[in-house]
């Protein structure tokens, strides 16, 4: 026989009280999140499992989620087709260098907008927001012609140059991040430095920049990821020269045929989805490593920079 107190205890355990949610609610919550998380990550799980399947496993309808053997042959082929060691280095250069420059330049611009009142600031703000909306197609062709006349096509400078002038990929977001950061910096610090006779540049370097370390980290990692994944401008400006991983993945089939001509290889070495997905996985692997190392900076970026702060 359960006493009244016991029943209350059980009730509270299942349905929760004012201070906790209760077991039933918690279980439902976890089940929901796990289900949603599974659907969400389904493409990645499918990609990873398929990339480990041998040609026989691929044809075997009984093999769904667990391959009969861990087959690395797909990765060996994809590694060669992507020309991995070379492309990964150029991908790193093409994403990291513009990101560092972009962050540095955007910090200067954001500081100017946040700490000074000047005529036409509203207009400049509106134009910065406009650059976020304008599709790349509307500016890419003349830019490409300019880079061509300067002999910069296929050269990493075609990506660096716009970043150097605050017009890099999604620069508006980074200017906004630094703007928010410098807006929240107390004026007292600046005034104290001024009393000590610091110039405006010195105030920026010695008071502004140290306070903006989180903004720098968030900007650099997001910028790196977005430059890495960008594939329209790289195709427009770099094709024929520097090859990044996404560019190489986009012509995977063609590159595969060059390395393994379909008439020359046996049926097991023909291009199949497992090889393609191995190539795709190699493409995102560096980003996954970066994400899991720096995950705190990614998922807490919004709080750290206060970008949505009204």
């Amino acid at each position, binding site marked *: 026989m359960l006493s009244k107190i016991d029943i209350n205890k059980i009730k509270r355990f299942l349905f929760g009280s004012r201070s906790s949610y209760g077991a039933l609610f918690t279980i439902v*919550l976890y089940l929901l*999140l796990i289900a949603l*998380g599974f*659907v*969400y*990550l*389904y*493409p*990645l799980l499918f*990609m990873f499992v398929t990339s480990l399947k041998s040609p026989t496993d691929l044809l075997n309808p009984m093999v769904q989620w667990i391959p009969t053997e861990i087959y690395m042959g797909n990765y060996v082929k994809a590694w060669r087709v992507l020309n991995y060691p070379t492309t990964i280095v150029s991908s790193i250069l093409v994403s990291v260098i513009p990101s560092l420059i972009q962050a540095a330049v955007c910090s*200067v*611009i954001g500081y100017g*907008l946040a*700490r*000074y*009142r*000047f005529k036409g*600031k509203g207009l*400049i703000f509106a134009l910065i927001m406009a650059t976020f*909306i*304008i*599709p*790349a*197609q*509307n*500016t890419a*062709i*003349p*830019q490409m012609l*300019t880079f061509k006349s300067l002999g910069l096509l296929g050269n990493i400078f075609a990506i660096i*140059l*716009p970043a150097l*002038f*605050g*017009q890099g990929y999604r620069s508006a977001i980074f200017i906004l991040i630094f703007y928010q950061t410098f807006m929240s910096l107390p004026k007292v610090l600046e*005034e104290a430095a*001024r*009393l000590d006779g610091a110039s405006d540049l010195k105030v*920026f370097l010695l008071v502004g920049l140290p306070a903006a370390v989180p903004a720098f980290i968030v900007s650099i990692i997001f910028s790196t*990821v977005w430059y*890495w*994944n*960008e*594939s*329209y401008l790289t195709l427009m400006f770099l094709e024929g020269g520097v090859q990044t991983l*996404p*560019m190489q*993945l986009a012509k995977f089939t063609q590159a595969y045929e060059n390395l393994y001509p379909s008439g020359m290889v046996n049926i097991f070495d023909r291009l199949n989805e497992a090889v*393609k*997905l191995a190539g*795709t996985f190699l*493409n*995102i692997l560096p*980003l996954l490593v970066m*994400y899991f190392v720096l995950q705190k900076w*990614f*998922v807490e*970026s*919004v709080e750290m920079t206060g970008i*949505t702060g009204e």
Partner: protein
Amino acid sequence: MKADSPTPKKGFHLTLRARENLYGYAFVMIWIVGFVIFTLVPLIQTFQFSLNNVTVTATGIKMVPVHWANYSRALFTDPTFVSLLIEYAIETLVSVPIVIIFSMIIALFLNLNFKLKGFFRTIFFLPVVITSGPVIQELVAQGTTSVPGIADSTGITAILSQLPSYLSGPIEYLLTSFILILWFSGVQILIYLSSLQKIDQSIYEAAAIDGASAWESFWKITLPSLSTTTLINAIYTIITLSHFSENKVIKYIYNQTYAVQGGFGYAGAMSYLFFFVLLLLLGITAFILSPRSGKKR
């Protein structure tokens, strides 16, 4: 509020105002120069191209004025461009509510107190890091982005074949790319989460004392507090979807840029038409979602 720097300064001959103007411009000058060189002038040139027949020659480019012929060709003669443009507009309008509702639900979940909160947060943000055109193209090509088991069922294919193409297109897109649409929710989840954390908890406590259920609190407190955030998220979603390099219109414009029958002029005209539709979509969204109650404040 003019005297925001009350400390006396020695030996400057500019007024405070002029000084602020000068230094302000010194800091943003690099942006202004860059904007003119890399955005404004190319924008004008693209428009100029769009009014001409542009051919690339060994010495440079040759332009023959054709007035609005490129535009009328895109709108009235080209059989693919307009249908792609309409498809893009419908797909975007369908995707935005999905992204908004999904990211709001996930943010509401992640705002609760439970142990594996951080873990799930990491999962739902993951796609932001890996979403690039070629990667998505491979994943879609292998059929991994559809809701498992629904998209390829024969019943649905039969129904789809009966519908006109402007309806079946978006539905097919929804079925084959559903997970992909959800993948565009990563940043939005974070933005919702940070807004949720800013809502004053004492409002909920006061409502609970007055007898409001959690359901009522959500509709009367949470949702109105998120209205500005919803607008920001909707605009962000539209822009990322429109700029995504797998966007069919963008792909078509790119292919036409170097095609013999296309060229820079035709690509420029299509770019401007695409830009116009994008602005239209943003305008519609801003009109629907702009917080009208905000005026009463």
